[in-house]
């Protein structure tokens, strides 16, 4: 892609630009997740900054939902902590606004259908855009579930990042690749989110399947269970454009609830190690 094209696309598609930039540097993207407002709104702000200082390329913020069916115990507990601390969709959006005012890192929101519908999808995307959000991931809104949803998002320049699973059949995979914007979120195992010792056993096969039909070179990032620098290195070597790490970071919060300083330090340190593993040299 020519230099000038990259420049004009920068503001409207920060996620795509970020992947372009990283490709030219021969790096994969490290996408780091935290639940919005966990454990409290104040500590969240410091934690999110620690992710950026550690070198995260894209930050993903979760809007907690009472019934997170795609999440394992670690993110369930963080959602509960944030909800108990009084977090709401609006408050996460304003945390997002604070974050993007301070950091030049693309911001993605992750949540379930219902908090978005409760606010009204149109209003949600409008406020999200004003808060500097570049994309959304909605695990219970698969491709084709609601075409209106994707239209409203794109009207507000918000990418809708679709997920592909190990058992997604090829015809459906092609459609998902064509419809996703920002990047494709590859689910690297059968199961829910949660820290794992080993990389999801379906990750590499699924990656291979996607690569073989990914004519337009849509960026592909793998998540679910991705926890260690080794996992990240393996994924990037196998051709992934990015790795998404969530529960392993949220676990750090859970384990250091009484020591905010150490929590931030460890988050920053772990993100730095994960980021290092995305460099291909």
């Amino acid at each position, binding site marked *: 892609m020519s230099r000038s094209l990259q420049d004009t696309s920068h503001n409207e598609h920060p996620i795509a630009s970020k992947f372009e930039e990283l490709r030219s540097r021969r790096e994969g993207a490290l996408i780091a997740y935290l639940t919005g407002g966990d454990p409290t709104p104040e500590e969240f702000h410091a934690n999110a900054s620690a992710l950026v200082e550690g070198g995260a390329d894209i930050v993903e913020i979760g809007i907690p*939902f*009472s*019934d997170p*069916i*795609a999440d*394992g*115990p670690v993110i*369930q507990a963080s959602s509960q902590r944030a*909800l108990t601390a009084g977090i*709401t*969709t*609006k408050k996460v959006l304003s945390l997002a606004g604070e974050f993007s005012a301070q950091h030049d890192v693309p911001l993605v929101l992750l949540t*379930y*259908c*219902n*908090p*978005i*519908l*409760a*606010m009204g999808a149109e209003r949600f995307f409008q406020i999200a855009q004003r808060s500097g959000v570049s994309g959304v991931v909605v*695990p*219970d*809104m*698969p*491709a084709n*579930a*609601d075409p209106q949803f994707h239209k409203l998002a794109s009207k507000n320049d918000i990418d809708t990042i*679709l*997920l*592909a*699973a*190990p*058992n*997604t*059949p090829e015809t*459906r995979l092609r459609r*998902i690749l064509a419809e996703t914007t920002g990047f494709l979120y590859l*689910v690297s195992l*059968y*199961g*829910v989110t949660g820290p794992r010792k080993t990389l999801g056993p379906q990750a590499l096969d699924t990656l291979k399947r996607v690569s073989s039909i990914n004519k337009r070179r849509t960026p592909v990032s793998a998540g679910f269970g991705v926890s260690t620098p080794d996992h990240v290195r393996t994924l990037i070597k196998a051709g992934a454009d990015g790795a998404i790490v969530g529960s392993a970071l949220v676990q750090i919060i859970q384990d250091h609830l009484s020591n905010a300083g150490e929590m931030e330090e460890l988050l920053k340190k772990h993100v730095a190690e994960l980021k290092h593993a995305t460099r291909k040299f």
Partner: protein
Amino acid sequence: MKIRQAATNSRGRFGKYGGQYVPETLMKPLQDLEEAYDEYSRDPSFKKELRNLLESYAGRPTPLYLARNLTRNLRGAKIYLKREDLLHGGAHKINNTLGQALLAGRMGKKRIIAETGAGQHGVATAMACAALGLQSEIYMGREDMERQKLNVYRMKMLGAEVHPVDSGSRTLKDAINESLRDWVTNVENTYYLLGSAVGPHPYPTIVRDFQSIIGKEARHQILAREDKLPRAVIACVGGGSNSIGIFHQFLHDLEVDLYGVEAGGQDIQPGHHAAALVAGSEGVLHGMLTYLLQDKNGQVQNTRSISAGLDYPAVGPEHAYLKSTGRVKYRAVSDNDALDAFKRLSDQEGIMPALEPAHALSYALKLAKRYPTSDSIIVNLSGRGDKDVEIVARHFPQ
């Protein structure tokens, strides 16, 4: 793909309600399920085997009983009870579990998972799986395990493994969450046997079809007895399976009023009841767009009902649709009124109902008085009350 029932369109919607709001990993098994169901529900050998099981194992057809004493004392419409409480296991749930377990077997799945609230669906799943040689694992909220101890024991005796659920409110909603999490993890060998007309397409359609035998029988029976259709049909609504099962055959009989009765709990304050259609608003939970008890931020609210089987913050999408068209009217009945109805049926007819259909009965007793004695109404007595004796005893000390 052709779906035969008129109310479902090709995207698995009832009007705008329903759909498939699920993680991508579940899209393939839902597609497989839809195709298998489409094939076997038309397969004569499948239908024959199911009919045999329903007759010789579950005890169909169930009688339509004229509650003579209740009727005499009320001096209103005749009250007929559709006796699903006489089925094996003590509730209508077996109609669905036999159908789905048979389907799972045809699909080559050996491991069955299910959620349960009152424990009735868990018991019916354990029974169907034992009979068909399948392995069953049941998710049940810790709180429900406490209040339905007898059913936990029954499930274990019947060979099921019971997994306590400690997340969220530790009731039916959370048991469904945990079942969905199990399913995405073990999707390749596992069949999720959902217990009510809820969840992503095609479950609401499958469960309704397997339960609609209730209405088919009841319609024949009432015509044979009364030579005319009933004035009203009344059923309790938790997720909505026994109610859609009895309503479905009467949907086009516009002279028959249909009433769905939800759990009014203590009162209609948030958190004190489980009346999603009466007091809820539209939202997405468990893969479906439907009516939901939620706060203004879209967080699902806690529910409370004396009957564990109605203690659910959402409702099947076909009911959301039937509410929107006005064809079915939905009402809420309080814990106390349900307890009164339990007592009245017990001492006047010698039948102890489950607390769930006691809600429907309570409303029927009010309604019957408005109609002439030449009319009749049918109450779906979806289950028997043995499981609830401990709870009821606390309210009516001897």
